[in-house]
């Protein structure tokens, strides 16, 4: 069975550039829309890139800001100044 790496975000204006960045940067991403939240799934690995979010947001963005809109996740987390990544790869 494929191991699904996943991020669930709130459905709101603050989250939208992050959702868009994930959709653009993770080929094959699957989307589950729920009232108030959206679950984004990828086989193996899913990543949020700072640069990609900043491009959409038009201002500097710290990956830790994702905590304001993050609902849930699955995978091992790796976070630094440039990205926020969940994966099952080692």
């Amino acid at each position: 069975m494929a191991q699904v790496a996943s991020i669930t975000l709130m459905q709101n204006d603050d989250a939208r550039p992050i959702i868009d960045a994930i959709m653009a940067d993770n080929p094959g991403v699957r989307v589950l829309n729920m009232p108030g939240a959206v679950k984004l799934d990828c086989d193996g690995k899913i990543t949020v890139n700072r640069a990609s979010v900043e491009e959409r947001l038009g201002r500097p963005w710290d990956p830790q800001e994702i905590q304001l809109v993050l609902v849930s996740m699955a995978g091992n987390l790796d976070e630094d100044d440039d990205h926020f990544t969940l994966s099952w790869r080692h």
Partner: protein
Amino acid sequence: MSGTKKLALRQRYEYLTRGLDWETTYQPMDKVFPYDSFEGIKIKDWSAWEDPFRLTMDSYWKFQAEKERKLYAVLDSFAQNNGQTTISDGRYANVLKLFLTGISPEEYQAHRGFAFTGRHLRGAGARVAAQMQSLDELRHLQTQVHTISHYNKYFDGIAEWPLMHDRVWYLSVPKSFFDDARSAGPFEFMIAIGFAFEYLLTNLLFVPFMSGAAYNGDMSTVTFGFSAQSDESRHMTLGIEIIKFLLEQHPDNLPIVQKWVDKWFWRGHRLLGIVAMMMDYMLPKKVMSWKEAWDIYFVEAGGALFQDLGRYGLKMPKYADIATAEAEHISHQNWAVFYQYTHAAAFHTWMPDNEHLDWLSEKYPNTFDKYYRPRWEMWAKMEKEGKRFYNPALPQLCQTCQIPMAYTEPGDPTTICFRSTQYKGDTYHFCSDGCKDIFCDEPEKFVQAWLPVHQIFQGNCGGATVPDVLKWYHMNVGADNMDYVGSPDEKLWNEWHAEKLRQAG
């Protein structure tokens, strides 16, 4: 922009957590940390602890303050706009009653538990993460009380939540779950709450439930729910880090950790049966069935997780297959219990209408029409004939999970599952092999269980009759309990609705 002058995230985190540790000299370290060895867990090197969130205290306060500002703006707006009148249906308020009496007090228990582990773990990184979580859990309780206090102005069954949590029969299920975790050692607590509850099971509690609140027009609850859940991702990460850390530190830790994973998975599965019932029966507008949520959040997400942890030798929790099979039954069996005992519960029950029955048939094609729909139709018929069914007998409770013995045999939904064992000349009863195993491993702990039905029979709950006991529960009889139809809640809801229709002309 991460300028070059600014410290990188990794460095900032290093500075926060390293150097908080020192070898004590006035007292030996084993006296300073007296609880971290009796469980048998072996730690060779606490400095190997990694917290991937690397959240420093200044960022923590900044983010938490921002979350609070957003939440309280929504609460104010909800109250100013009389949001309680625009929820999907008056029945919805019963979800909040169950949440505040059954779940919010566990946020407080988690706060206490993480404060304890945040003091008693020897590694600074783990201590900082546990202390942040302790603060988060206190915030969750506070925001839930603030949010639901608005509903308390209009709906019954909410006012006495702390006392009810300590006394009312079904609330001993979540209470005893956390009492068990908090009276364990710090490592078992971390596996119980940090890993099994926060990582494996919390999604099942919060995500579909809060999405349900959004769908049912309860913006205040969805906001506290998602605000709490945004902390939860950090908690999930702590949970997965603790289990990986323990398994990496020493091979002797594996059997101990596996035993805790087995125990807390099963206990969590039993506890979440209440959520299953809320999702399938109590949300007027439904988001997904319990079975669907279980498939996404346990079968798929849990499957990926245990595949990953397999490299340490950790296996899927014992009885995971039985829990997955029970996802077809558990919400129906729980609702049947509360329907029969509605006179003793501080929220309202009802029989599903035809549309709701059809939804259940569609979501549970293997079980609902065969085992549950006929029973609901019979009870609805009895209601119409003025013979509404109440169960006057007090149920036997499982010694471990404290749930009434209403669950069925694996593979046979027509036979109630009973297990028992002897300990020091007494017989103890269980709802399942999972609960029996847990008892048999720690009998001295579980013989002390405060079982509500036993306590009633022993005369410790206000008296010998049902009215005596309900008085001791501080239950406002005729308002807090019984069916939704005919309740003051329903009357109020219908008045609001009629007013809206009148204004609309």
